[in-house]
């Protein structure tokens, strides 16, 4: 009788472990280090305003196939943008509001969407992440300029014995690095920014 109870308890424990193991409850915070960009500073004074939705950006998803995901990336997004913009413009500061201020250009980044794909979904041996940004621009006088859209893309190989979260986190970290590279090379070439920089002498 005792043996039967022990066996039942053991089976129930194994069953619970299997069930818990299959549920993908993913929750992590993205960490990204962006290297110092090799860029020539543009002679513009620029302010950046990070809306709360950007500063505290959190990706959430709950589906039967993927389980529940909660991925925080706001801090890393802000650090990446500050890193690039600070090196891209002769004067740079963070603004507390998107209102007109004593700067020539105001940058307001937004995240339009974030997507992931996993090896078991694509058949590739790597995780992928996409982050689509809209960079809204306005002059210091409050005149709205054409916005600039771009997508950061990242990949991370499936590491043997590494957790599922590691692949997701690494692909998103790579997407942020790629977004930083596009920001550093693409924003100076965006016509409203380029024209203003040329007007001020560079």
């Amino acid at each position, binding site marked *: 009788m005792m043996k039967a109870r022990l066996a039942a308890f053991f089976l129930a424990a194994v069953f619970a472990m299997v069930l818990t193991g299959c549920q993908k409850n993913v929750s992590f915070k993205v960490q990204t280090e962006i290297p110092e960009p090799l*860029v020539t500073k543009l002679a513009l004074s620029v302010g950046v305003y990070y809306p709360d939705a950007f500063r505290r950006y959190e990706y959430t998803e709950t589906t039967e196939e993927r389980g529940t995901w909660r991925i925080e990336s706001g801090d890393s997004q802000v650090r990446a943008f500050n890193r690039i913009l600070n090196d891209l413009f002769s004067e740079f500061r963070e603004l507390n509001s998107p209102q007109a201020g004593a700067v020539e250009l105001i940058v307001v980044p937004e995240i339009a969407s974030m997507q992931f794909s996993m090896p078991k979904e694509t058949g590739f041996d790597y995780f992928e992440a996409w982050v689509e940004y809209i960079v809204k621009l306005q002059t210091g006088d409050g005149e709205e300029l054409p916005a600039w859209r771009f997508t950061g893309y990242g990949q991370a190989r499936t590491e043997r014995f590494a957790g599922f979260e590691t692949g997701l986190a690494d692909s998103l970290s790579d997407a942020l690095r790629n977004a930083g590279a596009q920001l550093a*090379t693409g924003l100076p070439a965006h016509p409203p920014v380029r024209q203003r920089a040329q007007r001020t002498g560079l």
Partner: protein
Amino acid sequence: MLRLVYPVLVCALLYGCKSHTVIDRHQEIPVAMESGDSIVLLGRSTRLAESGDHDFVDCVGNALETRNANLDVVKENEFVDAMYPWFESTTAPTEVSMLEHLFNNDAITERFEELAIKYLIWIEGRTETLESIGGITCSIGPGGGGCFGYKSWDDEADYVAAIWDIDQQADAARIGTRTNGTSYMPAVIIPIPLLARVKHTACDAMAGQIADYLSMPK
């Protein structure tokens, strides 16, 4: 049954795991390496939505350093970080003629000089399994367990290295290696993998050719 299995095993050991490599080398301009010059190897993808084979790039870099201790090989990660954001997957130059535009940026020129990069070597390609046959089944029971069967597969490692001369901003040479090999895995209770190391063989062949090119007299 064992009378049949052992000869198969012996044949597989004798003739199996063989690989053959084809090398294709095309040289545009002579080498001009001097003391203190360094090279960097970078991986590049040949397919959309696929990253370069960085393991292979590391393997070739290590093999080059082993062959020539005086050769200074800058690590791929170090170089890409030092050149950020100009050598990322979406921003890196795809043709040697694009270097001219990059070198208009003084900061990039200075960084190349600091690292003393003489040759930039792009490595493209992949290792893949072309075909596999057979199968192995494993079972476990109260009296023990084991596997039985036979499986074999053909792998191909196909890589091309494009060597760019930084000073001349020109294609210096192009080296291709293609290695094919068949691996076998007979299983009689225990699976015995007899692997053809095609990637490693291709890596050695590529490193040998690059080392040979770089050591050629001016």
